[in-house]
């Protein structure tokens, strides 16, 4: 039976892991390759590197991180942030990554998803969707997907600073039609708040697409992972700070999921 994945996310700037609230108060937390290898040993089902390097000249450093990780940790690696073209994606895959996640670039140039899927296969193309709740709409402005009065979410980019006007569920469906083989759905209302995943958002998307949905944004503890899968219909769950701050281990999260009857790849199997 297909296991529900637990995925630690490492924010990487200039080749170093940084943590803190995503874009401010960054503190250096060490070598991403070393941390990734440790997570793999501890049972991570996949590792996501989110490249938040600000300066263009620092961009190449994530390739070196992927290269070093791929030679030591034999689990799937995904790179997000800053990839804007087929050629850039090729470089990331050649460094040893398995997937590339597109966020702002996909919104700006949706055809990029199609081009990359054609070249490397849909399985390598992840569309990251950052979504924020909108206030309920009056009945007169109802859209095809959004039932009048029901909750809707708007896609935002640039770390939540830029509203796009796109409706998140519609964008999710379109991204899949364009070629995305997986969706990484982050609730910007919950991200960094440790108040649990937005399971309503996850369900709204997972019930309308066939590709796997990765839940992100808001994890506070193992129970949230259970809810993201059970209530949100997520296929995988991503978190950053609760792992980096060693509030919970991957094993503790997986044990809670297993106790709730969800299929997981046991950590002892990974460490066998």
């Amino acid at each position: 039976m297909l296991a529900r994945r637990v995925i630690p996310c490492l924010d990487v700037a200039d080749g170093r892991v940084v943590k803190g609230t995503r874009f401010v108060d960054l503190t250096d937390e060490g070598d991403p390759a070393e941390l990734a290898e440790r997570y793999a040993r501890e049972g991570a089902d996949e590792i996501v590197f989110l490249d938040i390097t600000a300066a263009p000249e620092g961009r190449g450093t994530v390739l070196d991180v992927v290269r070093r990780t791929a030679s030591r940790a034999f689990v799937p690696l995904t790179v997000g942030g800053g990839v804007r073209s087929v050629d850039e994606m090729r470089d990331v895959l050649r460094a040893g990554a398995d997937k590339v996640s597109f966020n702002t670039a996909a919104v700006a140039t949706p055809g990029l998803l199609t081009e990359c899927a054609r070249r490397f296969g849909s399985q390598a193309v992840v569309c990251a969707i950052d979504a924020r709740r909108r206030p309920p709409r009056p009945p007169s402005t109802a859209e095809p997907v959004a039932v009048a009065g029901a909750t809707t979410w708007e896609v935002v980019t640039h770390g939540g600073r830029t509203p796009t006007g796109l409706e998140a569920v519609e964008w999710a469906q379109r991204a899949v039609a364009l070629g995305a083989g997986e969706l990484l759905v982050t609730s910007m209302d919950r991200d960094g708040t440790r108040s649990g995943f937005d399971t309503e958002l996850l369900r709204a998307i997972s019930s309308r697409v066939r590709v796997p949905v990765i839940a992100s944004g808001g994890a506070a503890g193992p129970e949230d992972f259970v809810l993201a899968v059970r209530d949100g219909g997520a296929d995988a769950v991503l978190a950053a700070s609760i792992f980096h701050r060693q509030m919970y281990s991957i094993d503790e999260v997986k044990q809670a999921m297993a106790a709730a009857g969800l299929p997981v790849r046991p950590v002892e199997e990974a460490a066998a």
Partner: protein
Amino acid sequence: MSARRPPVVAVLDYGAANMVSISQALVAAGAHAVVATDAAGLQGVDAIVVPGVGAAAPAMVHLRERGLLEPLREWVRADRPCLGICLGYQLFFDRSAEGDAETLGLLAGRTLALEGAPTLPHIGWNTVEAVRPHPLFEGIADGSHFYFVHSFAPAPEDETVVVARTTHGRPFVSAVASGSLYGLQFHPEKSDEAGQRLLANFLRLVVAADGKVAAGGTGAVARGAVVS
């Protein structure tokens, strides 16, 4: 080949795979991995790995363009060790429903879309259930998790080649073996400890096959013959 020399494994590069991951995983498992982009790259190697993700039709075009089709067929006809991974495994069969492509025809059967799958692509760690014991899975608990990324899987006509099955919606064949030809729908190079052990087992089979040849064996087992 001397027992001390690590087996030389050629990873076929036909523009459809993450060459870095499979090469590094083979090296970690004890191989000397080389990347082969044409027939000359197969000179002097002990085994071939056919990796790959993506679609069958363009993969066949690339194999043909690089002059690898016939050398690969001859290699397998001579029962020399060959491991196909994901798309590489699917190419061993007669045809693929993905783009209705004619494939290598080394094993009887067709590659079909996964039916009844709750999610597609089938991405993630799934359990591999043994149909029969096989040295590839030695030391790996039955039902261990391996990493999958695919939407199609082969349906072998010859049940005796089936080594393991996996269920996503419905069961499909996730591992086959026929003589020294091995096929895996999952990615051992992305499957952590279980995958590394499987690759090490493959390398042991490569060394054993080489010993057989060195000892004067025929080195030729008929298509469909089973090693176990």
